[in-house]
């Protein structure tokens, strides 16, 4: 929902609730994360405290760098829905207490689980009074102190134990200091990659207690190597991914315990042995800080102006420079912004209307509904299912993220059956087979020998497309390959040659072609509704979290292949923009003639580009401008427009067109909606069309020569960027307009 609408809605709801509950409304500000990489400070309105609640005006809120960075960058094992307010540890002053709250009075200094808000309503049992001689900033770290305390408590640390703490962050330092108070023989603290010390004797290198505060899934292997017989490894930090198997050898023959100590798993109402409530742990933290036994962090502490939150989080997201103890300093805000009772003026003027949005709205004066849709499926398909009459046997090679989507498409299509799930990771293959059926294998050989397998669906990293395809076609199997067809044009040409020689169908999964709006656009161009094409503009700007590069969007399969040109073939141009290039050539039927490209890498790890801009001169004179990136915090900027002498088509939201001519889908000189569909349906239709092509009932839905054309264009773009000069695009043996399907 747009921010403006959301604020107005929240404004209304807050007043309705306030009236119903006879409570006041308070206005303040809070840090809000709207999307991965997009943080801002925005106004918030909250009700006065209800039963059991305390209204607190924040002074300092502590940053928990590991957790907040993970949430901001959406690293694996983070589960938040946007928008959300980060933070969980702060100090402030009580403004008002709700009915039934006895321990606090207005004016009290309190600390507890308070997010990054200037004013917040907090449950009384999540707060604790601050001891007089405890400083504000020390008190602001109370929740982190509680996390450290309960982790050490769960470890069952005893007098004389040798303790290692993995992780040198704020929580790591705090944990090591808490552990020191439990009477161990030694406490050592180690950073990433620092396993047993080189100067340690074998006995010194082993520890009875290892507290893992690193958040790094690979640190568990270090912990196991440092473990003495019967050692306890306690997971205090949340690990961001799947840990590899523990190392063989010393650790493999060793009895060790791994204990989880997540902050949410503490006692709720009453402390039990080994499980204390938040209030009891927080009370202990305050006592020890007050007595001077616990110094929770090293000075200096970074004080952040909440208005600069976005800048701080960008730095945190990059992890450079290392962030130590930091707090948001809410005193830096003017009083009227920080907390006040509400006015009844809705927050409409808080943000100015986006002029870009106004401009776009103005260009679409009236949107007429258009109900017609085109069906471009094969004419000889089954009349009821729109599919062929025999079910196709498919073996999936690669069972990662995209394979799940394609398997869904196969299931939706109802014309094929998954016979094999093949992946070098047996876990992935088993998981895939558990969801979609098929036998599990770690290599392709068994599937190629299986006579019930008609086709291989390649969903692997790009550098494996060509070798797997050649193996498959040599065995007489048809091949579906997830886009792009290969890393570069020579590889694609080899695949095409192999498929031709074997007389099998080779098709690239470009499902965008089967979106109803794309099919409708192609129809409009074909019937002349747009006239001679003059230009096109395509922009696709998104934000890829760092975790994407090592595990895709879902983290299902951990690998760094996307970050290396050697294995991926390229970055945003090859991985993302190839869809749009294919759709553009498909819709317009134009050929690219000359290209100029600029590209660079700004945030992506490895050596692939994450920002690219292209200018393409098409045959016939049209000029196409394209730009794309995966490093735009907030993301979401999409444009896909094609215009000509007589009209314009826009395939971004909502899909629409305007034609000066009479046409099949709308009235002349009026913007009309195009039918629109979803990716899932497009993939389904693509699979049906492929099955029909294999059975000889229809043409190849995406002939490989057309994929080669896209690949040639991309290759030329990369060369242009390297040479910093415009280049002519070489003519392929088969160019889109001269397509000779490979069977």
């Amino acid at each position, binding site marked *: 929902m747009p921010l403006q609408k959301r604020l107005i809605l929240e404004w209304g709801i807050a007043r309705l609730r306030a009236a119903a509950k006879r409570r006041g409304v308070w206005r303040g500000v809070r840090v809000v994360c709207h999307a991965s990489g997009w943080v801002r400070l925005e106004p918030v309105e909250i009700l006065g405290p209800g039963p059991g609640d305390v209204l607190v005006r924040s002074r300092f809120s502590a940053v928990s760098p590991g957790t907040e960075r993970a949430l901001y960058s959406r690293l694996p*094992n983070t589960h938040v829905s946007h928008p959300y307010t980060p933070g969980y540890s702060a100090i402030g002053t009580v403004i008002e207490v709700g009915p039934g709250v006895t321990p606090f009075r207005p004016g009290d200094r309190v600390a507890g689980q308070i997010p990054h808000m200037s004013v917040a309503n907090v449950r009384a049992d999540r707060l604790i009074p601050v001891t007089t001689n405890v400083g504000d900033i020390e008190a602001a770290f109370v929740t982190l102190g509680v996390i450290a305390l309960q982790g050490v408590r*769960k470890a069952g640390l005893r007098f004389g134990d040798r303790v290692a703490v993995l992780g040198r962050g704020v929580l790591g330092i705090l944990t090591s200091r808490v552990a020191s108070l439990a009477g161990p023989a030694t406490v050592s603290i180690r950073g990433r990659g620092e396993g047993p010390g080189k100067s340690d004797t074998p006995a010194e290198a082993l520890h009875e207690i290892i507290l893992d505060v690193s958040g790094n*899934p690979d640190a*568990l292997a270090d912990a196991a190597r440092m473990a*003495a*017989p*019967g050692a306890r490894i306690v*997971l205090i930090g*949340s*690990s*961001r*991914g*799947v*840990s*590899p*198997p*523990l*190392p*063989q050898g010393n*650790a*493999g*023959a*060793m*009895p*060790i*315990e*791994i*204990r*989880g*100590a*997540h902050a*949410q*798993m503490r006692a709720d109402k009453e402390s039990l042995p080994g*499980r204390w409530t938040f209030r009891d742990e927080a009370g202990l933290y305050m006592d020890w800080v007050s007595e001077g036994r616990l110094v929770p962090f090293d000075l200096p502490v970074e004080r952040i102006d909440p208005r600069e939150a976005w800048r701080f989080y960008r730095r945190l997201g990059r992890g450079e420079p290392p962030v130590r103890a930091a707090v948001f300093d809410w005193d830096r805000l003017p009083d009227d912004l920080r907390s006040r009772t509400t006015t009844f003026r809705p927050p409409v003027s808080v943000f100015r209307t986006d002029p870009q949005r106004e401009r776009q709205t103005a260009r679409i004066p009236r949107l007429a509904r258009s109900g017609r849709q085109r069906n471009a499926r094969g004419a000889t398909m089954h009349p009821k299912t729109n599919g062929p009459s025999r079910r196709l046997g498919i073996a999936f090679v690669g069972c990662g993220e995209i394979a799940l989507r394609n398997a869904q498409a196969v299931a939706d299509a109802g014309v094929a059956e998954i016979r094999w799930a093949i992946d070098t990771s*047996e*876990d992935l293959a*088993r*998981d895939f087979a558990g969801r979609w059926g098929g036998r599990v294998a770690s290599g392709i050989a068994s599937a190629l020998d299986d006579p019930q397998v008609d086709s291989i669906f390649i969903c692997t990293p790009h550098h494996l497309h060509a070798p797997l395809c050649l193996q498959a076609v040599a065995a007489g199997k048809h091949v579906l390959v997830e886009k792009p067809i290969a890393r570069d044009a020579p590889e694609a040409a080899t695949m095409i040659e192999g498929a031709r020689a074997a007389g099998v169908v080779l098709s690239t999964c470009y499902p965008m072609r089967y979106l109803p709006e794309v099919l409708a656009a192609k129809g409009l161009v074909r019937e002349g509704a747009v006239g001679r094409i003059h230009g096109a503009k395509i922009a696709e700007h998104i934000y890829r979290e760092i975790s994407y590069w090592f595990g895709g969007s879902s983290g299902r399969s951990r690998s760094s292949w996307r970050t290396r040109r050697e294995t991926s073939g390229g970055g945003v141009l090859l991985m993302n923009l190839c869809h749009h290039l294919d759709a553009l050539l498909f819709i317009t039927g134009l050929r690219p003639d000359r290209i100029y490209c600029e590209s660079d890498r700004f945030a992506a790890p490895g050596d692939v580009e994450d920002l690219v801009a292209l200018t393409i001169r098409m045959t016939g004179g049209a000029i196409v401008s394209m730009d794309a990136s995966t490093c735009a915090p907030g993301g979401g900027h999409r444009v896909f427009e094609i215009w000509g002498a007589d009209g314009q088509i826009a395939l971004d939201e909502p899909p629409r067109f305007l034609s000066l001519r009479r046409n099949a889908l709308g009235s002349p000189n009026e913007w009309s909606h195009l039918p629109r569909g979803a990716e899932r349906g497009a993939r389904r239709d693509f699979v049906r069309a492929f099955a029909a092509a294999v059975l000889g009932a229809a043409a190849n839905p995406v002939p490989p020569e057309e994929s080669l054309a896209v690949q040639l264009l991309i290759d030329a773009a990369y060369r242009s960027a390297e040479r910093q000069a415009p280049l002519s695009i070489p003519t392929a043996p088969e160019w889109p307009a001269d397509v000779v399907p490979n069977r």
Partner: protein
Amino acid sequence: MWSRIAEITSTRDVVRIRHEWISGPECRLRAALVRWEEPEDPTRRVALVGVAWEAPGGAISWGWPDVAGRFELRTGPDRPEVCSVLPPALSLALAFRRGGVELGERALILGDGFLARLACAVASAVGYRVVQTSEPGGQDAGDSMRADVVIETTAVPNRLEWATTRCRDWGRVYSLGGGLTSVPLNYYAHVHRRALTLTQVPDRPVLCAGEEEIVTRGTARLADAVRGIRPEGVEILDAQMFPDGSSGRLERERSGWGLLLVEG
């Protein structure tokens, strides 16, 4: 304490054990518990887990190998075939002792092989109420209720993950058979967030400080619990002992565990 050294090799049909004394009298090897880490290939990765010897006077002693393959001999509380299966049982019993047992807690044991049967016996002996299941989702798995303790004995990929889902929050999962060293695991989702304790139990005891006396005190009780439990004899292999030249037969089950008994 007397000590001996022993090593095992294997072909498809025959196992050979060479054993020699380091200190103490010359003894006859009478029984041995053997494990193949790759059951499909009997020529590779075979190891002695527990061995029982008979001294000239008829006294039985037993032990398990340390990393150098040396056995420290202890007085045997029972017949050789019982003593030889004591090491994995003792390793599990010590793990229970370190972790603490709440009398009457429900223990779910995953697997149906030798290790699972052994785990059932040991868990019962220390005060758990035991349920055994061979397959995830099996009728005996008590799917409607999470167990306080889950003991995973199969080392099959994904079973460890499943085992954690069958354990209540704050519960304990014991991994026997090397599961932790063979499968990746999302510790955040399966251990950390639920405050579970996941314990790796080696197949032979590794003693911590002060546990030597526990072994001495506890083995008679443990021998009572595991008497009669042995690997199923799905496959029979000949066995030859060196240098004494005695022979025997080894019964091996599919899981890779086998029990060797020397004739005479």
